[in-house]
């Protein structure tokens, strides 16, 4: 399967981040088309396209939009989830830095479709360079009459606010994001009501990921059939894959859904030093890890699920044989413990407990029976926590245990750094490779 740059097609244009640069490559053409359509027709096109959310859950985007009640007399809101914080995920931030106007165009079209006159782009606070690029694009679009009152004479009004987060992974969870956007602690909300009915300010709200929104102008401009010519029936379209880890040429690669990891690895120059993939994760630390045997699976929502993992954010992390899986999992759990919002017991206390147990393995203080205890504790979190963060925290260990039980047992005898020289896994020149 070849690479198919669409969203990334013009990233090598130095002024693409400006409205002039964006327009020169066809930008805002889709908006003009969209504003001449019936909003429901746009919703139907997106439904027909089969576009699925690129934030990790893969929920059908058009269906999500159709849940918004119409003619309800309430304001509607669009909220863009640009809180990209999942370990391994690094595609939305590059999109916003390289081509912010594609996001703005998607926001305007989406807002028009769902009848929202106010849109918010919630960008994680730790990336000022994404904030300023998007804010600059909003200002340019406003000056060009693409935001504000009566956009392009359509009678449609829209305000877009660029909002800065402040450091909390949980705000990627959509209801936590809403609480955060309302100025509260970013803790998830009880559902129902769902955001489509009572979201921001208790009004109907659509929350979409950055990459998802960036697909919209292309679907409107080039059509549903064209969009569906990429990918599979259940996973149509293209994907901005961000390949990281122990590869020779990490970076952004855009290709249809259904490409295999082996093909992506090839584009990314293969495993460094000609080494082997020890384990890899298709899309973030919250999906169960896979091994070399899974490199030829098509990377679609359905095939990844069949393999017992998830496509997630579609940003594969590759680890070679220098890496201790025990250490990797421990570090992820330290992350989940740090990012647990504290609201619910299983996640708050569970991450505290299992992280401590994993640290014992990392440092060679554990006993073999702790493996069963760890598995049991993970079981007590999964499916019982308030939101998906708890489920995510309960994911890395069981997956690692499935493929690398011996490594955990070995870690009961000695610290993992004795077995796996940390320097060996360093990526920069001079570091040893195994």
């Amino acid at each position, binding site marked *: 399967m*070849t*690479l198919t*740059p669409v969203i990334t097609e013009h*990233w090598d244009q130095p002024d693409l*981040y400006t409205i002039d640069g964006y327009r020169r490559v*066809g930008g805002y053409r889709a908006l003009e088309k969209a504003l001449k359509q019936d909003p429901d027709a746009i919703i139907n096109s997106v439904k027909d396209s089969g576009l699925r959310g690129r934030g990790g859950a893969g929920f059908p985007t058009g269906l999500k939009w159709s849940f918004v009640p119409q003619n309800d007399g309430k*304001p509607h809101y669009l909220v863009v989830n640009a809180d990209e*914080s999942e*370990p*391994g995920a*690094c595609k939305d931030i*590059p999109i916003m830095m390289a081509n912010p106007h594609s996001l703005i165009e998607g926001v305007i079209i989406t807002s028009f479709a769902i009848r929202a006159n106010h849109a918010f782009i919630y960008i994680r*606070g*730790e*990336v*000022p*360079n994404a904030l*300023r690029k998007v*804010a*600059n694009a909003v*200002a340019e679009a406003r000056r060009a009459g693409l935001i504000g009152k009566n956009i392009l004479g359509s009678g449609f009004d829209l305000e877009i*606010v*660029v*909002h*800065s*987060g*402040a*450091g*909390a*992974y949980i705000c990627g969870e959509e209801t936590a994001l809403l609480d*955060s956007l*309302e*100025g*509260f602690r*970013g803790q998830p909300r009880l559902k129902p009501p769902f955001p489509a009915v009572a979201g921001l*300010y208790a009004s109907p709200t659509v929350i979409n990921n950055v990459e998802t929104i960036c697909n919209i102008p292309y679907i409107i*401009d080039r*059509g549903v059939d*064209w969009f569906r*010519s990429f990918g599979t029936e259940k996973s149509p379209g293209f994907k901005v894959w961000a*390949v*990281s*880890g122990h590869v020779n*040429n990490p*970076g*952004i*690669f*855009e290709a249809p859904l259904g490409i295999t990891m082996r093909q992506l690895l090839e*584009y990314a120059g293969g495993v460094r030093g000609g080494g082997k993939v020890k384990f890899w994760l298709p899309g973030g630390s919250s999906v169960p890890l896979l091994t070399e045997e899974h490199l030829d699976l098509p990377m679609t929502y359905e095939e990844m699920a069949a393999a017992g993992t998830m496509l997630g954010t579609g*940003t594969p992390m590759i680890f070679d044989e220098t890496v201790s899986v025990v*250490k990797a999992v421990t*570090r*992820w759990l330290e*992350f989940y413990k740090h990012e647990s919002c504290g609201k619910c017991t299983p996640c708050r206390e569970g991450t505290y407990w299992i992280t401590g147990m994993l640290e014992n393995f990392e440092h060679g203080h554990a006993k073999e029976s702790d493996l069963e205890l760890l598995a049991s504790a993970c079981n007590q979190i999964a499916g019982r926590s308030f939101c998906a963060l708890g489920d995510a925290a309960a994911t890395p260990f069981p997956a690692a245990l499935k493929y690398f039980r011996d490594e955990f047992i070995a870690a009961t005898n000695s610290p993992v750094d004795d077995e796996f020289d*940390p*320097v060996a*896994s*360093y*990526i*920069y020149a001079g570091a040893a490779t195994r």
Partner: protein
Amino acid sequence: MAINEQTLASMREIVARYPQPRSALLPMLHLVQSAEGEVTTDGIAACAEVLGISPAEVTGVSTFYTMYKRKPVGEHHIGVCVNTLCGLLGGDAVYEALSERLGVGHNEPTADGKFSLERIECQAACTHAPVMTVDWEFMDDVTPTSALDVVDRLSRGERVESTRGPVIRNFQASEHTMAFPDDGLAGEGISVDAKMLAGLRYAKEHNMAAPRSGQEG
């Protein structure tokens, strides 16, 4: 600097962006940090006053988010990603080197107030691992040597450019950007680098492209 009339006026300006005032709280707390260098009791009181909520409510919010600091931050706040991928690909060594050089640990400022150091979580730049941030601007693909070099140059007051962003200013200036993101620096520095173009360049070199659509244009 401190909370003054100008700060309060800026806070009200932020409030005006939103349908409901309290939505302004996160950017307002960034503004407090830009004015005070940290979230101070005065800053909390100012937010509470402007929004008509209690200081406890503001405190609850300000302690929830890791970017808000309740103790002094250095002129330059340095973050090193030690999440799994960055950490194991060398971020751990970068952090250790900086910690040793600066003589400080996690979330501690140097005695001269020039730097503070933080073990940060994933910065959404895994393709550029190991990742460091200076005042939250990207310093991609660092090594212990290059990280120490950045610190040395900043110590000497030299101009340091972000690898994907503008010239490094200082922590408080970056915090101002989080409150007022359209900071006029969008055109400064490189934002798209070779790694972001890896796929595009490969495609061009190998004559790969997405199929065109009949409807296009």
